[in-house]
């Protein structure tokens, strides 16, 4: 997909003016925040589970090479094949190789963010293979020629009316006068159409929420059942997963599952949690003939041992974006690549480079909600600050901004000078503002004053007022 992260500012201007999008985004706060809180409140051990989940992932990352080796050995013992992929291009080539060997024409797909990360759909189409998204949200955006705007609710930016219009536009062999007012009928129509596709597919693709080293299993966590039909009925199951999905044991998986669904959708447990291990066995009546795992690195191994290592604990629950005021305002597409919201603002620069990620690390008010709800306790605001520092160090900001920051830093590091300069500036600004006591325009701050006036200082600085007030208080006591 074309990366537009570098035009984040322009993307947000468009998003804020998009009436349909703004209507749809209202569902994010309504749909996720209260449900999560209710589920969390009902489990007294939630915070202890978070701590343990952090410990499990930290331990796994520390010995990731060994856990991957153990995992690969178990997959191979169960008759599956693991393919290591350096980057997106490599992963696509591996996939095409598997598809060519099977002479594949159609590929059904459960929800997978790695597929988005490697741009699989467009690549398959270029190579004459038809990808069919089977998750309702993914199906909707595939019809619309869009990309997911949320990692667990890919079509959260689309309204019911738009879905109806898309279904009427694409499902032309159905009765044009059919009633699609109720969302249930839209869901039923998608169910009907996709039902035929699962068993026809040459390959079924899924992602993985976990890869278990102890057993060589891939785990998917879903609500709709499409992921299971995809991995069960396709003649060949291909799992797309990145290296940080490893967990040591079944018990470790259970620990993290308890915080995953609660943080994501506010369920105690998603409807379907499925562990798949290898292809169909001799006595089995159903299941795929082949089982492949494409294990993607794409920059992650280089995040280990850096200030961004903790990002590799992320379990893709979406809680950070569900609670982010910036995401609520501009939606996921503004972030310009695969991963939106606070986790995207941290991960995107790691995966595609800070030079291509533009303002993403700046797309935060630093309110801290993302970190407070992150089940894996990832310090997202701190990491965005790291990226801002790197952005500054690499001279990526415009010169005026750098000069401004430089001037401010000069004074900020010299408190005496800073206070002197500010106490001189205050009365001058008050004078300049005149009787209106506000500025309608200011040099270098046009972006701010374009939308509102800047109130003028009242004449004394905070420090001056503070000194006076504390003096007055102590004076009273005496």
């Amino acid at each position, binding site marked *: 997909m074309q990366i537009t992260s570098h035009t984040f500012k322009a993307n947000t201007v468009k998003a804020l003016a998009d009436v349909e999008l703004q209507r*749809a985004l209202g569902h994010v706060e309504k749909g996720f925040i209260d449900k999560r809180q209710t589920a969390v409140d009902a489990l007294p051990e939630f915070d202890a589970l978070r701590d343990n989940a952090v410990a499990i992932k930290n331990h796994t990352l520390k010995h990731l090479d060994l*856990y991957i080796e153990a995992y690969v050995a178990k997959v191979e013992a169960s008759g599956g094949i693991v393919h290591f992929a350096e980057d997106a291009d490599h992963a696509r080539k591996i996939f095409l190789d598997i598809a060519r060997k099977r002479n594949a024409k159609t590929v059904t797909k459960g929800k997978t963010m790695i597929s988005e990360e490697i741009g699989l759909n467009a690549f398959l189409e270029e190579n004459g293979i038809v990808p069919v998204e089977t998750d309702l949200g993914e199906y909707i955006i595939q019809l619309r020629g869009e990309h997911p705007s949320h990692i667990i609710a890919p079509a959260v930016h689309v309204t019911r009316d738009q879905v109806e219009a898309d279904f009427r536009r694409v499902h032309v062999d159905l009765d044009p006068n059919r009633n699609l007012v109720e969302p249930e009928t839209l869901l039923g129509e998608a169910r009907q159409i996709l039902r035929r596709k699962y068993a026809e597919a040459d390959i079924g693709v899924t992602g993985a929420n976990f890869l278990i080293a102890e057993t060589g299993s891939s785990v998917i966590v879903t609500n709709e059942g499409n992921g299971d039909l995809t991995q069960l*009925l396709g003649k060949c199951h291909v799992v797309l997963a990145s290296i940080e999905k490893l967990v040591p044991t079944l*018990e470790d998986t259970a620990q993290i599952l308890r915080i995953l669904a609660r943080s994501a959708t506010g369920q105690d*447990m998603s409807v379907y949690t499925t562990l798949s*291990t290898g292809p169909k066995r001799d006595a089995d009546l159903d299941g795929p003939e082949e089982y492949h795992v494409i294990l993607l690195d794409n920059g992650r191994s280089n995040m280990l*041992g850096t200030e961004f290592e903790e990002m590799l604990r992320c379990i893709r629950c979406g809680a950070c974006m569900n609670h982010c005021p910036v995401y609520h305002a501009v939606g996921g597409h503004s972030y310009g690549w695969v991963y939106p919201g606070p986790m995207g603002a941290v991960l995107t620069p790691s995966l595609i480079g800070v030079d291509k990620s533009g303002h993403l690390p700046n797309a935060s008010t630093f309110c801290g909600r993302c970190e407070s709800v992150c089940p894996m306790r990832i310090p997202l605001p701190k990491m965005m600050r790291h990226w801002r520092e790197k952005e500054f160090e690499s001279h990526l900001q415009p010169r005026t901004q750098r000069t401004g920051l430089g001037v401010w830093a000069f004074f900020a590091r010299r408190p005496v000078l800073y206070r002197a300069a500010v106490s001189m500036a205050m009365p001058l600004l008050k004078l300049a503002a005149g009787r209106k006591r506000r500025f309608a325009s200011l040099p270098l701050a046009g972006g701010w004053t374009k939308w509102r006036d800047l109130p003028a200082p009242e004449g004394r600085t905070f420090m001056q007022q503070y000194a006076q007030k504390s003096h007055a208080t102590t004076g009273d006591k005496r």
Partner: protein
Amino acid sequence: MSASTREAVLGRIRRSNGARPNDPERRRIVEERMAGAPVGIVPQRGRLPQDEQVALFIRMAERANATTARIAGYGDLADEVSRWLRENNFPADLRMSEDPRFANADFDATSLTIRKGVSDGDDLNGLSHAETAIAETGTLVLVSGPENPTSLNFLPENHIVVVKADSIGGEMEAVFPMLRARYGKGEMPRSLNFVTGPSRSGDIEQTLLLGAHGPRALHIVIVD
């Protein structure tokens, strides 16, 4: 497998972690962790006497929009299945798995049209047997194999699942020792399904709709 990529990725991980490839101490830590499989934090919610675990399972499964019934033995199963289908106005068709535990259920005495084995995708009602269930979250645990093909869990419009009351455990951690006893340490059935309620989607305006791609209704029959 592309051995060179594998070594490149693993090598980078080691370099980033400052780890040596053949450090016996690290290998010991990892092997012990996988062998010991420490249990971690288990919520109090499921830690109950067995009969209360069954009650909690029923409560949690119903909260996840499943329906439940409790019967005295497999002899009552055919009647319960017929009753549930009839009362919900579902057709009298049933695709059932060939689980040996169904041997004592007399479906010939009902008016149901019975087919056995794997689902062909057109089945309206499916019947499977779960290995166990988890009280903490109202979750059924089904394993793949010739007795209970996985397609029955997902393809039929309505799914009826039988579980023995005395197999129900308090929490997910109770399932794993059972799996290890049956399949061996580190071994798994091809597919292990944790099922909590009927399928659903929230993808249209974050409104919960039951009956997405999997079964629209889930009925759990607990056998004492």
